[in-house]
């Protein structure tokens, strides 16, 4: 598919992620997807903006909220739906589900449901990149909650100490499950990262995929050339509940006014003309992927004890 501009390309990619997740929401009551889903709706711009400047050989390590990164990094849509369905043609043969998507063929090196646990993996991969692979850049993508974990601090320290080509990408949606930042953190994320001697950038406009793309591309270029780490925090907003297909504004831990403020800046909502133009093509691709998942067989007894050791 060719695009007239980077804006159109990023718009298309972000819209594709949103429509995929909206299909997940539609399908969820059917119980065909028996896997906890942590939706990225509202946060698509971060993933598409960041991944735009990454090559398939650049590695990205993700968390359980990984659908957007999986697709933005180039993961196969059919393999994703088949995985959500628990089918053998899924990207992990049905053993991973939503929380552990991977696409090593395009550099998505696994996703973990234990907060912050893949951040040191990115650092270890960067240790290899620094010594062996002179073009490769590694990205650790994580949320604001991860910055409270010990492994996060251990990772920043080691990356800064050894000057490794890893970009720490913190998607700050202000929430850990239902807990606000103010209930969890005595520090400002960006100041704390800076204290390790890392160069840092904080960007409040996580809705703006063009801006994310522009800033992140400079950071990736820097890491590619200088082989040193970088820290970027992007403010963003999770439209849906922590896990599951719904919304939970009635629970009172945040206000719908916040959501409306982010939606008022959301290109995927504002640019109706472009959304209308791309929607049919994307929906067709999604129909095809869902049909593929439906048709794929279940894993069987032969798979139960394969790939253990």
């Amino acid at each position, binding site marked *: 598919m060719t695009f007239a501009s980077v804006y159109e390309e990023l718009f298309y990619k972000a819209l594709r992620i949103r429509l995929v997740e909206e299909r997940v929401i539609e399908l969820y009551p059917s119980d065909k997807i028996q896997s906890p889903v942590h939706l990225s709706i509202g946060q698509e711009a971060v993933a598409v903006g960041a991944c735009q400047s990454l090559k398939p050989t650049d590695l990205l390590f993700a968390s359980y909220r990984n659908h957007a990164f999986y697709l933005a990094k180039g993961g196969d849509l059919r393999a994703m739906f088949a995985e959500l369905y628990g089918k053998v043609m899924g990207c992990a043969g049905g053993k*991973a589900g939503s929380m552990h998507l991977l696409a*090593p063929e395009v550099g998505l090196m696994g996703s973990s449901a234990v907060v912050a646990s893949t951040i040191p993996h990115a650092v*270890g991969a960067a240790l290899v990149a620094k010594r062996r692979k002179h073009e490769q850049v590694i990205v650790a993508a994580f949320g604001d909650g991860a910055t409270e974990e010990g492994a996060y601090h251990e990772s920043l320290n080691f990356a800064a100490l050894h000057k490794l080509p890893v970009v720490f990408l913190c998607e700050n949606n202000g929430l850990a499950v239902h807990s606000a930042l103010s209930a969890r953190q005595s520090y400002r994320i960006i100041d704390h990262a800076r204290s390790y001697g890392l160069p840092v950038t904080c960007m409040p406009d996580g809705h703006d995929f063009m801006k994310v793309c522009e800033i992140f591309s400079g950071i990736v270029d820097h890491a590619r050339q200088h082989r040193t780490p970088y820290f970027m925090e992007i403010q963003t907003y999770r439209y849906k509940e922590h896990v599951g297909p719904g919304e939970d504004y009635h629970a009172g831990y945040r206000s719908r006014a916040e959501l409306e403020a982010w939606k008022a800046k959301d290109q995927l909502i504002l640019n109706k003309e472009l959304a209308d133009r791309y929607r049919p093509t994307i929906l067709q691709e999604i129909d095809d992927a869902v049909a593929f998942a439906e048709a794929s067989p279940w894993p069987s007894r032969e798979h139960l004890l394969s790939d*253990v*050791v």
Partner: protein
Amino acid sequence: MSTAHTGTHADEQLSSACPGEVVTYRDALFRTMRDALKQNPDVILFGQGVDDHKGIFGSTLGLAHEFGSDRVFDTPLAEEGMTGVAIGAALNGLYPIQTHIRADFVLLAMNQIVNLAAKYKYMFGGRLEVPMLIRMVVGRSWGQGAQHSQSLQSLFAHIPGLTVLMPASAQSILECYPYAIANQRGPVLAIEHRLMYDLKFRVDEVREKPNGSPLASHRVRVGKDVTIVATSIMVLEALRAAEHLARSAGIECEIIDLNCVSHIDAAMILESVKKTGKLLVADTSWKAYGVCAEVCRIVCEHSPASLKAPAVTLGMQPAPCPTAKSLEDMYYPNLRDLTDAIAKLVSGKGDHGIPLPDEHSMADVYKRFKGPF
């Protein structure tokens, strides 16, 4: 319960040792580390103090100098983070070897070992692998106390996806480590025993490898009267007790060194118990939920009628390890306890009348070093 090792080819040569040569446990470790670095440019070796003047009790001494700080390096005190770094390095093509001077510190890395390394191959449908070796040393004596003495094999061996080695000789190290580094595509944990570092072992011809892998259990003594299944330094204790009983009472013990406690050779144990009718399990750790319990489970499930007497188990007392020597000597089973237990089991009598060795502190026998470690 077959072994799950998938290696296609085992090095037929022992790593830099000739049959008949006498090699210390420490030297076997050093040789395997050095050979790994020399033979495979993808191997890196790191851990707290790996490049210092003590070099993990001599097992890594001089390797940073020889192979460069890119490949052999010290780490921050960050066990979880560094195990995660090892996983990431493995995912990007290296073979990391991580060291811990005490096994107790590995508890800080349990998240990465159990939730990540052990799961990655399976959880990702075989598409990711994390080949790596984690070495850890079990301390004992000179007041190691509660947090420098734990032998945590049952915690690790409980988890599918992990391969857990407990080398009981230099030979085991020389056979297993190079094999694991060359052939195992997942995480291998090696639990080494500090008291064995100075011991000298005669290296034999390459031993038979059931299933083509040296990561298997080995019958280290053949006998007809009792089957002793043991791990790590308890294999040596069992051998000493067996010699004593053969000399003083004509009792012939058969001894099985489990060696790879995560993949026990059940057939070897069952066959032996069928022959002897008696089972004694001697492990370096606590008995409950551990190797002792597991070996008894295997026999109870598959061949309970083989047992002509109730199984006997020996391990640490069910308490944290005390520091005072007077307590520590009671805490671990000693040669006298082990010999007595075997004699009772074989004779079927409490007052068997077989003379027992006058040895109450195993550490005094093995220990060549004095503090601070």
